[in-house]
């Protein structure tokens, strides 16, 4: 019954989109097709990469959009391929099922469909796809950590880890757990990218098996583009006032000023702390729209998860109990995370390390129409802002910069993409940095995705470390 309803809804909406928004053709609903395809035909390397690392063997939409940044694409595909296909503690169907579970937390039907196919191809038991009640208890136990990791990673404690690895019939070994955690974090983050870039469903649904669920198939992406019913006063008020061109100039100006000011500006420590807190608090109000949490629970996707109402809760508004801020310097990816991950699941550390490094350092020294711009500051602001929303604080970062560099509409977008990606709309995507190229916005998405993945990993790995000591 529900399935039928949904499918009808899906069909109807797709039709509407086709009429109203021709840009939904191509890999992304947000990016005009020619932007992506142009870049694509040129790039022979991408095709080779796809041949080499793709598990499905075809150029999927994610890859097409990412191929705007071929350098990054390589490390992305390589690490993804490694965790899905190469030597690892978990059997192949498990890996895909975990991916499905992760994507389901954000109702990302695109990823779910993709991995349902892969899951079956790698010999997974079809029955599992009926929902969590049908999978082994062991996989089911992963649910809790999946939930926390996706929405409130700071709540993960060593008790959660202990519960999973405690000897018993359904226990996880540490390497298995690390593999699972890496997969979870990867697919949570990838869901952010999918929604953030408005990835369209694959055009040619593979009908080779009967398990692809049509109702799921067309479900979410329609919602992405469908933001007519959402009114955001603060956003629309911004539109008319600031001319987009001067917006860009203003940003450049601010960056320049920040760079110069740095020496003489001497903020006290209290001031710095306040700024972090302020940034954290402000992120509260960034998404002011009240979403009903139960919207999501109706979807078919929810059978892969439990407690679908559990969502991101602002770190800053954590209520009575005072959760300590995660001090980035006390548990860094480079020093601690890497060693642990690599120890328990060999070589993935190097691949992730390369990917993080790549995304952090990726730059073309351009900003919209300007060339020869040092965008380090901007990239760092984006990265740290994401971490800030997960309660990770860098001692050596002045969070005042975030305020200066990231305009409100961008903050809305960042917050939505990282915390509730399923609510991203085309309007949000369009409303920030209107002068910027699409490839630059994809770059932003990559940064957000990796920052999010790293944040999740840091929390999970810290919990594992604590369990070990």
């Amino acid at each position, binding site marked *: 019954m529900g399935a039928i309803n949904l499918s009808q809804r899906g069909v109807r909406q797709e039709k509407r989109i086709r009429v109203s928004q021709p840009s939904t053709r191509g890999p992304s609903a947000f990016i005009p097709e020619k932007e992506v395809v142009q870049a694509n035909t040129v790039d022979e390397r991408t095709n080779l990469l796809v041949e080499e690392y793709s598990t499905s063997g075809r150029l999927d939409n994610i890859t097409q959009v990412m191929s705007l940044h071929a350098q990054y694409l390589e490390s992305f595909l390589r690490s993804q391929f490694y965790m899905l296909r190469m030597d690892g503690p978990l059997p192949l169907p498990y890996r895909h099922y975990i991916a499905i579970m992760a994507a389901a937390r954000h109702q990302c039907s695109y990823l779910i469909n993709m991995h349902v196919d892969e899951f079956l191809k790698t010999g997974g038991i079809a029955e599992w796809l009926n929902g969590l009640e049908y999978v082994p208890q062991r996989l089911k136990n992963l649910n809790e950590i999946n939930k926390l990791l996706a929405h409130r990673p700071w709540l993960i404690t060593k008790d959660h880890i202990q519960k999973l690895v405690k000897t018993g019939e359904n226990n996880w070994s540490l390497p298995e757990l690390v593999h699972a955690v890496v997969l979870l974090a990867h697919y949570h983050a990838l869901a952010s990218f999918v929604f953030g870039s408005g990835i369209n469903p694959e055009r040619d649904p593979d009908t080779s098996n009967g398990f692809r669920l049509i109702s799921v198939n067309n479900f979410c992406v329609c919602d992405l583009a469908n933001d007519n019913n959402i009114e955001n006063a603060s956003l629309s008020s911004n539109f008319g006032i600031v001319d987009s061109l001067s917006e860009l100039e203003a940003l450049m100006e601010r960056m320049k000023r920040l760079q110069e000011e740095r020496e003489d500006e001497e903020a006290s420590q209290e001031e710095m702390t306040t700024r972090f807190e302020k940034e954290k608090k402000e992120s509260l109000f960034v998404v002011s729209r009240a979403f009903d949490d139960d919207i999501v629970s109706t979807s078919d996707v929810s059978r892969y998860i439990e407690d679908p109402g559990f969502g991101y809760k602002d770190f800053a508004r954590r209520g009575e109990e005072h959760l300590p801020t995660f001090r980035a310097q006390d548990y860094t990816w480079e*020093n601690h995370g890497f060693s642990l991950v690599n120890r328990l699941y060999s070589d993935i550390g190097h691949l992730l390390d390369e990917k993080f490094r790549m995304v952090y350092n990726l730059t073309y020294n351009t900003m919209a129409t300007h060339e020869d711009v040092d965008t380090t500051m901007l990239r760092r602001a984006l990265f740290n802002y994401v971490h800030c929303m997960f309660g990770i604080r860098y001692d*050596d970062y002045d969070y005042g910069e975030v305020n200066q560099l990231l305009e409100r509409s961008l903050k809305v977008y960042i917050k939505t993409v990282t915390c509730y990606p399923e609510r991203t709309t085309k309007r949000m995507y369009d409303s920030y940095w209107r002068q910027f190229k699409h490839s630059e916005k994809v770059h932003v998405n990559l940064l957000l995705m990796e920052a999010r993945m790293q944040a999740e990993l840091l929390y999970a790995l810290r919990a594992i470390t604590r369990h070990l000591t």
Partner: protein
Amino acid sequence: MEKMARVTTALGGNTLTGRTMYCHLDAPANAISVCRDAAQVVVAGRNIFKIYAIEEEQFVEKLNLRVGRKPSLNFSCADVVWHQMDENLLATAATNGVVVTWNLGKPSRNKQDQLFTEHKRTVNKVCFHPTEAYMLLSGSQDGYMKCFDLRKKDSVSTFSGQSESVRDVQFSIRDYFTFAATFENGNVQLWDIRRPDRYERMFTAHNGPVFCCDWHPEDRGWLATGGRDKMVKVWDMNTNRAKEIYCVQSIASVARVKWRPECKHHLATCSMMVDHNIYVWDVRRPYIPSAMFEEHRDVTTGIVWRHLHDPYFLLSGSKDSTLYQHIFKDASQPIERANPEGLCYGLFGDLAFAAKESLVTVDSNRKPYPGDRRHPIFFKRKLDPTEQFESVSSSALSVFETEPDSSSMGWFVDTARRYALAGRSLAELCDHNAKVAKELSRNQVAQTWTMLRIIYCSPGTMPSANLNHSIGKGSTSLPLMNSFSLKDMASGMGSEARLDWSKGENRSENLLLDSSTTLITNDENEETEGSDVPADYLLGDVEGDEDELYLMDHENAHTEEPEYVLPQEAFPLRHEIVDNPSGPDHLQDKADSPHVSGNEAETVSLTPVESFSLISISHTLYESRLPPDFFSALVRDMLRFYAEQGDVQMAVSVLIVLGERIRKEIDEQTQEHWYTSYIDLLQRFRLWNISNQVIKLSTCRAITCLNQASTTLHVNCSNCKRPMSNKGWICDRCRQCASTCAVCHHVVKGLFVWCQGCSHGGHLQHILKWLESSTHCPAGCGHLCEYT
């Protein structure tokens, strides 16, 4: 020179004493440093900054430098260093990028002296110049190193590493102008302090970040580096190109490295993750630490030798909020716990054995290895008299060669090939295997299979003719009784070893052993053995006893010869059966009531002369048969027995064939052990298919997952015929996709099936489908392909 003298007197007049001791800090430490006089230590961390006095029996808090109501981030220290010339001067690196100096001579409570806020990111390391009073160096996450003159307000020079963050900076102890810096990308750079424009030289030291480095206190050219890749490397910098002279492999990323004073080849390390111990290595012996301190409960973050010239006192701070003083004589020495012997089989059955020289009996006519392979050879390690941990002075390596035919394992290979382990009913499997064993003249094994069948298969399904086939034939020709032979099943052991065993057991043990063996053996081929008997009486000590036992060497079962040259030391003589008397005892209780039923017509009684347990196989009693569970203890002991005898093949085969019936009787670990041994053996004989089958059939999780590891298959490119290193479906060299499916023209990444006639092929499914409707090759080459 004058300085040196002063230090020595300081040490002389104030000899260090103390014991292993610790004190609780209020917060995790990030770094520690000692005062020149070795009497005080400073501990710094995110929430702690204190000075402790090191007294004879304890640490005493002397000063808390963290003052103020709401301490700022400037107090959040990533590193701290105490000036080695001025005992009032300290410097810290703060996580927010500030470099702070502290003057303990200040009268006020706040000792903060200067504040340098030039770095944009966290400062990872600060370092004072060893001889220059006012020179301070810092290295930061932002990729810059800065040199400060403490008399000025700003840095005097900035060095750009042109790369990612700086992890460590260290002034050379001997070269006034030189300092080393290590980087996140694995590089080490050497700088001249006078030339901030460019580094003097650079080399890649590690794969991944280099967390730390330390100059050798005496040797001018040596630099030790430690990295995330778990290595400690010692570089000789005297030559043009930095040369790696030693490399120590640790088990976790190396966070700190410190040369041990007065010991040229020793250094101490601690790790940043997972491993909480502090190791002291002799770099010439890189595989095992010479000393180990295991006190900390969380990662050690700072280590420092208490005095510049004293090698026995080490201080350490840790994330577990403790500060320790370690005394060398309390250190644990892993060498003492390490197994000093090594034993390894060569491909062709040769055996190498290495041990401490003192353990190996000295053989005067020993010759060097290349001369005669049958004689042991010796290595000699040079002794360094200055080393105190050199407990093993030299070791000997002996190589034993097997004689060409002595250890022919043909029976093993044959058995492995021909055994059926699954796919048929239990009875059939047992019969089949019994037949196999019999044909290889391993009668005892054959008998065991038959017995198993009797035990576990219900009598209804057991055609008696079949049974006849397996035991009947043998027993008809038996002179039923009087003496029976107890066959030894020591298939894997030389006869000498067996001899030892039979001598070593005492009388009653023999009895037990006999009874248990009796059950699982049969004397069907008595007559063939008859000829051997006189020559092979072994049991002198039981002779003349009332139950006369003839323990015979059972030669014909296996082809091994008594001259099998394996040294007996290699095999500890274990006979667990004695330790597990439950089975046999049990049996003896029932001995008077024969309960094992075989063939009605041919009742085989294993009857010792008189009072010995009578076990007969009689069908009548079998009617009131005992549940198979009743025998499981027995079967378990039987399996153990085979395994102990070295015939792990039998143990594993039975385990697989019986499956659930016996599995729970034997603990997982033992099973796993058997499986691995058997698989190992199979692989040595290159019986890959069989070993794979065994892995597949095994029920141990640890074993079945063997098949999931390293499942790589290397292939050559179909275009350029060269190996494809990276992926199986794309060639790095000719940049082409090698194997495309003839049906869908996509790259095949999984199962590739191809016609051996025309060598076209593709996805298994696609080809299958194609050939359902067509007989020609999908590639259109005209070949009539066949799929079977």
